[in-house]
């Protein structure tokens, strides 16, 4: 199943070329959880604070169900 991964802010230290305009295309097995995807990307779960699947909040135990899903990973971010 094909998905698109976007990483932001300090998570780009590991993947400097993955941006909103240039997401990473990945093949995953059906039933893959976000925790497994995080591990496959070599992130620690602690550094990923906010996960969006197609713009909606998700948690690490959620399973990625939809072909073509956009998964966005953020560290702790804030501002005003």
């Amino acid at each position, binding site marked *: 199943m094909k998905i698109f991964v976007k990483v932001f802010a300090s998570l780009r230290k590991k993947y400097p070329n993955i941006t909103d*305009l240039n997401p990473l295309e990945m093949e995953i097995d059906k039933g893959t959880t976000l925790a497994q995807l995080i591990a496959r990307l070599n992130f620690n779960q602690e550094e990923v604070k906010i996960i969006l699947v197609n713009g909606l909040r998700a948690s690490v135990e959620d399973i990625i169900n939809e072909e073509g899903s956009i998964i966005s990973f953020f*560290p702790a971010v804030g501002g005003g």
Partner: protein
Amino acid sequence: MEFGYMNKWLKVNLTLKEFKDFSISEDILRKYVGGKGIAVHLLWKYVSKLEEKGINVKDFDALSSENMLIFATGPVTGTRSPNSGRHHVMALKSPLTGSIGSGNSGGRWGAKLKFAGYDGIVVIGKTEKPVYISIIDGSVEIHDATELWGKNSIETSNHLRNKHDKKRAGVSCIGPAGENLVPMAVIINEEHRAVGRTGLGAVMASKNLKAIIVEGNSKPNIAKPDEFNLKVKEHVEKLKENGVTGEGLPTYGTAVLVNIINQNGMFPTKNWQTGVNPDAEKISGETLTEEYLIDKHPCWGCVVACGRKTKVDKGNYKITYTEGPEYESIWALGGTTTINNMAAVIKANHYCDIFGMDPISVGSSIAAAMELNEKGMIPEEDLQGIDLRFGNADAVIELTWMTAFRQGLGFWIGEGSRKMCQHYGSPDLSMSVKGLEMPAYDPRGAKGIGLNYATGNRGGCHVTGYTIAAEILGDVDRFTTEGKAELTKIFQDFTSLVNSSVNCLFLTFALGLDEYAEMIGPITGWDVNSDELLTIGERITNLERMIINKFGITGKDDTLPKRLLEEKMPEGPSKGQTVDLDTMKEEYYELRGWVDGIPSEEKIIELGLK
């Protein structure tokens, strides 16, 4: 009051060119703490005085000499407690909105005012010729400022620091936009820090007051220094360990929000016609850091350093040095206008800083003009050849300086989107609340911030109660209306307390009410706890509300633009959403003890405001 305060306020009557010191009693300080709280208290007293004189405050002109302008610090300002260089400014009335004038600024001016020997300054009246005020080591003087009139914020600040031979002095001043009485003019300090919202620069200018320079060597006494120093250390550690204040903000500045807000489908685009901007990455914090950042730039005593020193090396918008832009400026000048060009945003933001204007109101009003033009509402002759399309960066730059100098269509931009959209026959295209342009979060994607915009006393404002911290950056369901009344109330009351302390709202990403008690207690010697502090915040919010009620602002004004209430978000992750404001507002009024936006008699008595 022995500790935390300088025990001295300055009252300046510019009409009489007189000034005198006064003090605030400890029982009033305990009720309102400082900063915004004391300013609201003084404005409420002033309303009574005006009413006694038979003046109807409802019809009161914000640019009349009788408007009161207050610069205020609090007990935390200027101490070793982190991020405490800030100050709060208020006016009885805003020339932009007709509601109360209120703004808060970073920099170092707040701390320097205390070092100069004062907790705050109250200004009334108007001089015939331009003046500036110096407060150096407790000595106050009013000087002629004719030679400063026309100078921008950088020129003014440099001139005054050189003239007084005080290289690190704090200078608050107005730029040409203020002098031209643009209703969205700001008061700038340290060249790039603004008391940004509600047009307080125009109020200062209407008094012919160009600047206030402050410097000195006094320090507030601390009641329990050992306990205080221990708590300072703990608070700094918490700020360093927190992901937002320890890494996100220092590395990327507030612009780190561009991508996450856009990924949630609530980054207002094309004057809020949609919440999705496919090119937001080009104006993101990541892009700013990679391509334009020289260094970070902390305010006085700041351990976060979200401020940016930036430059543009190539292209049409070259600039060798400026500061910013931050998230809101980027969105207003570059996102809702859809120019998606960081270099142009940096240039337009620089113009806002040196001419002295609020980039949120400027950018948002330009975007409203773009939509008016898209719908054919602006006559050809008013456009004067400007190609006012969404996405045209040159038009944004041109209109920014035209706004400062009230040229052509810039006149109407400067009047604010409410008046401009009324003038061109489409009032619903103004994305404002109570006449104040809303900031960069579409509440169709986070309902609590919509309630906060609607009920904010100064108008459409995020830093009245930043529920985004819970709804987008935290774990609260962003689409539900359930629980948002309580969330909004707590955020608003806590923020009133922060703005009275006075320190930086960003501390609250890492520090809560308990930590505020740990600052204010040892500084003042008061035995305060978080409940008392939240009640103080509630008291200030209510008293401010009682003032705007005097202007005829009530429940009917606690609303949102029709677009957010009725037009479904057309695309993206927030697709199909509107804001069900009435449900939240009813619950909010009940929690607040308000009837139709007016504090009830019982609430007034409960908070000791009778």
